[in-house]
């Protein structure tokens, strides 16, 4: 009896220990990511470009230009600009008046590139400005000028392009994968007789589900990027992810189709509807919650996937736009949040940036998780 009680206590202790370990692991990892990345999080972080943008812009002033130092700032009348000194960058734009001509400055291509607060000034007309230049030194550069050519740098460090790329990828992948998965599941549940074809399909799904994402990435790089000639693009990544997500979509749809009671089908057919009408109007709507859960699971997977995208989507941080038209294009490349986080660590060892991106990823993934939970609860599956 004594022996049993001791071993019982031992096991209970081990059980509590394991559970604590598991819970602490989660807390430590999430805590690590938040503590390392929160300093970079700000509204500008979410809206800025990833890389710096350097531009040479021109504008004119209507009135007389005078520069005057007021405290820590250099106020330049006539062009409505206030400049400040920054330890890291040199001279930055502190304020741009509402009527400042700089708001409509033109770059070398004739496009408008407005001068904004926070930009770094690297050159005025022929003079270059360095990290050590003081406000005094530049105050004389404005006199007797009415046309100005500024070298202006818009700082990057934001994740806006990655957000757009991720959204485009999610949208494109779901557009292709959802119909495929749902249609395939409908076949498996509603049409197929148990036999060779169904077993073949099921076997294929098992294999697809068991393949590591590296293999999907290799296949995608080979087939979609090289053989089909899509190169590194959102479409190439979306197609690769479709193949990867097919098992998830098919399985969750299958599950929810199976829960639709047969009596529904019989009643519908009894009323004279044919199979297609039954599926469209009765079965699919009932199975919708399950399908939605499958979609949410897929979105989570898309956001978190990296190995399959390394060579199908590329790792450069940009918005996938066609430069000629300026429109978003799925034939263009642009790294997603997760890919970028990986590159930040692997190539630059920049834990802070990777963690900041990690925070955004975690927020998205946890929210999705919550949504799927609420969904299952609401529809009582």
């Amino acid at each position, binding site marked *: 009896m004594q022996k*049993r*009680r001791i071993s*019982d206590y031992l*096991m*209970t202790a081990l*059980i509590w220990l*394991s*559970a604590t*370990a*598991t819970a602490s*692991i*989660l807390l430590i*990892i999430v805590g*690590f*990511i938040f503590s*390392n990345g929160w300093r970079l999080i700000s509204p500008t972080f979410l809206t800025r470009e990833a890389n710096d943008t350097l531009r040479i812009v021109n504008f004119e002033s209507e009135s007389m230009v005078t520069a005057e130092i007021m405290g820590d700032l250099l106020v330049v009348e006539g062009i409505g600009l206030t400049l400040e000194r920054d330890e890291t960058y040199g001279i930055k734009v502190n304020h741009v008046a509402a009527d400042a001509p700089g708001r409509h400055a033109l770059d070398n291509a004739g496009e408008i590139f407005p001068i904004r607060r926070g930009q770094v000034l690297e050159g005025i007309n022929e003079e270059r400005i360095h990290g050590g230049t003081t406000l005094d030194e530049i105050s004389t550069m404005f006199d007797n000028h009415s046309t100005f050519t500024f070298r202006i740098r818009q700082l990057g460090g934001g994740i806006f392009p990655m957000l757009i790329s991720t959204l485009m990828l999610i949208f494109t992948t779901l557009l292709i994968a959802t119909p*495929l998965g749902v*249609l*395939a599941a*409908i*076949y498996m549940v*509603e*049409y197929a007789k148990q036999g060779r*074809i169904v077993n073949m*399909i099921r076997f*294929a799904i098992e*294999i*697809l589900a*068991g*393949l*590591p*994402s*590296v*293999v999907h*990435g*290799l*296949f995608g*790089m080979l087939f979609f990027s090289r053989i089909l000639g899509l190169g590194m693009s959102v479409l190439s990544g979306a197609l690769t992810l479709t*193949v990867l997500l*097919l098992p998830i979509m*098919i399985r969750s749809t299958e599950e929810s189709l199976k829960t639709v009671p047969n009596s529904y089908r019989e009643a519908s057919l009894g009323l004279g509807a*044919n*199979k*297609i009408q039954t599926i469209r109007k009765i079965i699919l709507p009932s199975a919708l919650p399950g399908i939605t859960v499958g979609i949410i699971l897929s979105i989570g997977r898309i956001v*978190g*996937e*990296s*190995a399959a995208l*390394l*060579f199908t989507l590329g790792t450069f941080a940009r918005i996938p736009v066609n430069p000629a038209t300026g429109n978003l294009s799925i034939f263009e490349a642009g790294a997603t949040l997760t890919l970028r986080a990986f590159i930040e660590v*692997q190539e630059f060892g920049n*834990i802070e940036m*990777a*963690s900041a991106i990690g925070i955004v*990823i*975690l927020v998205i*993934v*946890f929210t*999705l998780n919550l949504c799927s*939970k609420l969904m299952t609860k609401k529809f009582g599956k």
Partner: protein
Amino acid sequence: MDVEIKLTKKRAFSEKLFHALFLSAGLFAVICVTAIIILIFTRGSRPFMPGNEYGTYHFFNFLTGTFWRPAFGEYGVGYMIIASLFATFGAMLLGVPIGILTAVFIAEVAPSWLAKIMQPTVELLAAIPSVLYGVFGFAVIVPMINNFTPNPTGYSLMAVILVLTIMVLPSIVAISVTSLRAVPTHYKEGSLALGASHIQTIFKVLIPGAKSGILTAVVLGVGRAIGETMAVILVAGNPESGVPTSIFDPVRLLTTNIVLEQGYATGLQAQMLFATVIVLFTFILAINLTLSKIRKKAVRI
């Protein structure tokens, strides 16, 4: 009458059309798998066939070689196979006990309010992308190991095992919880009525009762561990040779080898990467089949 026949014919035609549509959607998966297998196996097996334009290589040397030096024409994945096996085995060794015990906690031991908190916690762990585990490993686990390792750096098999354990834990816990809860209550009640303690009931009745589900969880965990790349690539060290003889040795896994070279491999080297995939594939298949067999046997008992 004519109109009726026309309508019926039209409907029959549209029915057939839809049937074909659904069927092709279903066959898409089969086509994909076939394409993947063909592409990979043709490219990966060429180096071992005579008459390859990039030269031939002996399959045995490939499997048992301990140097990966493309510059010298040496392609040995032997040491990677060992590293992958050690890493998976180690992750299972750590992850399965902790996972099962945590599942027991959630399903049986914890007061219900605690269980309600723990379960979403574990699910959240499952949702975290693997890259972030890699970042954590790189920034925390590797420096930590660096403090007490006899080797010069913390990039090691131990780091890989730790990261993989953390990754397989959530799936093992989640599935085990479901299986434990699925054990019929009269098993538990009967055991308690016979005088067994709660702990005894758990270990002698419930866990064996949930055997099938738990083994499924293990199979899934193994699949995840052996195929994981991104989290591991940042903590493994990735040396070009060397069978790991110590848990502190740096390792290169089959999966990380593929990703490291994927961008620039051409000719024979590229074919060798596909050959590596074939080896990986075979191992996953072999492990899955063995575990399936064990599962079937266990369920029968």
